């Protein structure tokens, strides 16, 4: 009896603490927001800008997060080399775009000048991801879970330092597309063209991916493998082929994200994949890892919170230099999600076999 009582007290204390934590965070956000809005430092246009910046950054996170989530859905492993797949996409596009820029092609055909590097980056990223899968993951398919994870980290370093070895430790400037400079006027607000292009391309890319997964035979097979590998194999699905396809599709998304990222930030370097990779992983967990719409939602939510959070509630709380804490917002969100909704925003409860 006594142990039971103490257990119940402990339970009570823990849930009390968690509730207190929830209330603390929520009230901090509310108080900060109210204080900022009352201070009236920013105009409506500036708030719109914050949201737009967040959406374009978030849609890039979402594109990368898709790769994490799809691979997790099928193999239950975190592909930590995914950030480097993103980086290799950006690098391949950089070299192609620089060459095209030199011939004057991008200036005369801005749309093709955007699409061709994206396609090339998707192909290169997919190829590299398939190689990584073949060399670093497939031989370890049956091994305990930690083994492919470590192998993924190794692959990540290998890719980073291979690129460093070939292209040096410095950064390269992605050639600007002149047609994308300046602003478009939407609903009375001037919004940077490149931000709109990035958000729209990301949305289109995600729509294509989602229809592949939902509507095609390959997509069906992917879902089947994700549901249960052994049964899928018994139904005549070539599991290995589907896994490779998943890697390739996820990597293609990351490659496209790499180009969009370079369009916004205009820099390509061998370490560029690390932070976006980790953020996108956060986004995938946020949305519910293994869940494709979840990755998209998680990416957007994370991007918008990162962009708007420092000025919206951190500044109102009287925190100086709030932008240094941008990452804190991202990882606090991750902790909150893991604490209060471990399956993520859109995630379903995992079955025993999956978990």
């Amino acid at each position, binding site marked *: 009896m006594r142990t039971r009582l103490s257990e119940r007290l402990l339970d009570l204390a823990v849930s009390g603490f968690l509730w207190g934590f929830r209330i603390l965070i929520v009230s901090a956000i509310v108080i900060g927001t109210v204080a900022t809005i009352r201070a009236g430092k920013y105009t409506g246009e*500036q708030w719109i800008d914050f949201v737009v910046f967040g959406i374009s950054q978030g849609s890039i996170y979402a594109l990368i997060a898709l790769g994490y989530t799809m691979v997790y859905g099928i193999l239950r492993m975190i592909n930590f080399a995914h950030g480097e797949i993103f980086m290799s996409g950006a690098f391949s596009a950089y070299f192609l775009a620089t060459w095209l820029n030199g011939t004057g092609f991008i200036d005369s055909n801005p749309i093709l000048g955007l699409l061709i590097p994206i396609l090339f980056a998707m192909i290169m990223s997919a190829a590299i991801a398939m190689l990584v899968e073949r060399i670093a993951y497939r031989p370890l398919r049956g091994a305990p879970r930690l083994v492919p994870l470590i192998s993924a980290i190794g692959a990540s370093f290998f890719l980073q330092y291979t690129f460093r070895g070939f292209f040096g430790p410095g950064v390269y400037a992605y050639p600007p597309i002149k047609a994308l400079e300046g602003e478009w006027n939407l609903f009375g607000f001037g919004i940077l063209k490149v931000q709109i292009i990035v958000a729209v391309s990301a949305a289109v890319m995600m729509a294509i991916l989602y229809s592949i997964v939902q509507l095609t035979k390959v997509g069906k097979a992917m879902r089947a493998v994700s549901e249960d590998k052994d049964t899928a194999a018994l139904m005549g699905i070539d599991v290995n082929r589907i896994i490779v396809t998943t890697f390739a599709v996820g990597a293609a998304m990351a490659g496209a994200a790499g180009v969009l990222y370079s369009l916004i930030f205009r820099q390509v370097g061998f370490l560029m994949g*690390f932070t976006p990779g980790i953020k996108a992983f956060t986004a995938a967990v946020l949305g519910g890892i293994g869940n494709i719409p979840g990755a998209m939602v998680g990416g957007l939510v994370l991007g918008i919170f990162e962009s708007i959070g420092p000025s919206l509630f951190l500044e109102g709380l009287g925190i100086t230099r709030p*932008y240094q804490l941008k990452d804190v917002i991202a990882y606090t969100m991750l902790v909150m999600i893991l604490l209060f909704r471990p399956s993520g925003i859109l995630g379903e409860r995992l079955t025993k076999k999956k978990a």
Partner: protein
Amino acid sequence: MKRLFALLSLLVVASMLFAACTPAATEAPAGNESPAATDAPAATDAPAATDAPAGAAYECTDALGCVTIAPDEPVHLAYWGVLSGPDSSLGEDSKRGVEIAIDDRGGKIFDHDILLTTEDAGCTPEGGATAAAKLATDTSLVGLIGSSCSDETVGGIATITNAGLLTISPSNTRPVLSDPNRGPDYAGYMRTAHSDAFQGKAVAEFAYNELGARKAATLHDGSAYAEALQQVFADNFVALGGEIVAQEAVAKDATDMKPVLTTIAAAQPDFFYYPVFVAVGGYVTAQIRDVAGLEEVPIAGSDGIFTADLLKGAGANVEGMYLSSPDFSAFTGDYAGFIEKHEAKYGGSTLSTFHAHAYDAANILFAALEQVAVVQDDGTIYVPRQALRDAVYATKDFKGITGTLSCSPSGDCGAPVIAMYQVVNADPASWNPADAANPNPKKIWP
């Protein structure tokens, strides 16, 4: 890189432990010396035994012990600093200065070859701690040149000092590193770079007097260098009568600067100063003109981004940007001769700002070595560590490239003359501040 972080932090903890233990280790032999006669422990016997055949005449009495260099061994120096990542030009540039200084001696000192090894410290405190821990274990090291970034020194200097080593930094500029109250951990630290107490003041005067700015905004990247420099600037700018309307900061690996720039735009500055490193500097410059309210504001940075790498990342916006740097035209030594040697050895323009400071740092170290090293007839060299430090601190009227250098008791050996340069061409290939006819960036003040 941060995936290494867990490992690195382990290493940092290890190096802290190491640093904590080292004083005990260096004290132990010192303490053992007097009782050595009564009961000599095995440990003190052993080195005596190995010393004996080489040069029995010399007995090391230095408080920090001696480095022994056998007749056929090289004199081992190390350069530590940033050799990878976006700021690698800064470290590589200084390393070249050291290499040219060694070449000038024909690669020899006391008829021994000079061996220069390098340790990458990555421009972070963690990297500095790791590099310092590795250097501290190498007992063949005579002295160090480095580090590049103030952060590296903050992370590693305690380990280096406690190992009995000394380091002369060609490019650390954070003011407190050579503050008279800097603490015993800094006993092994000197620098030939200027302190940012001068640089921040110069930029403030330029902005206030020359550009007529009255409302300045600053941004830093959280590094020891940038944080202190923008504060020195802000203090001086306010003292001149200006107003600081925004002081913001971002993380060193941040890429999306538009939100923070929007916040700065809301404060409506007429001068924007971001003395950061290359990564943040490139992203800020590339994105700043896209932010409503900042399309026209004059922008300025400092020596941390005085490199062609800034132009690579920043794109067209960099044209017209102001950069503060040591005034190359105020160097009293043979800078032109140095540039010729640099051109002959490496080709192309210098990579960053502090090559001449590194050259001077190496030569100060050689001069001190020549003063204190004890050379035996058979060629064995003994370098007493404390005496070497004292000799560097005692440097007076040393004729270097950057000026006539004298070291203060707190390790400041630099001759600070700061100038403002302006980028006149956004093409990285055009970078050549030393070009007589067509310099880029071009000196505009004073």
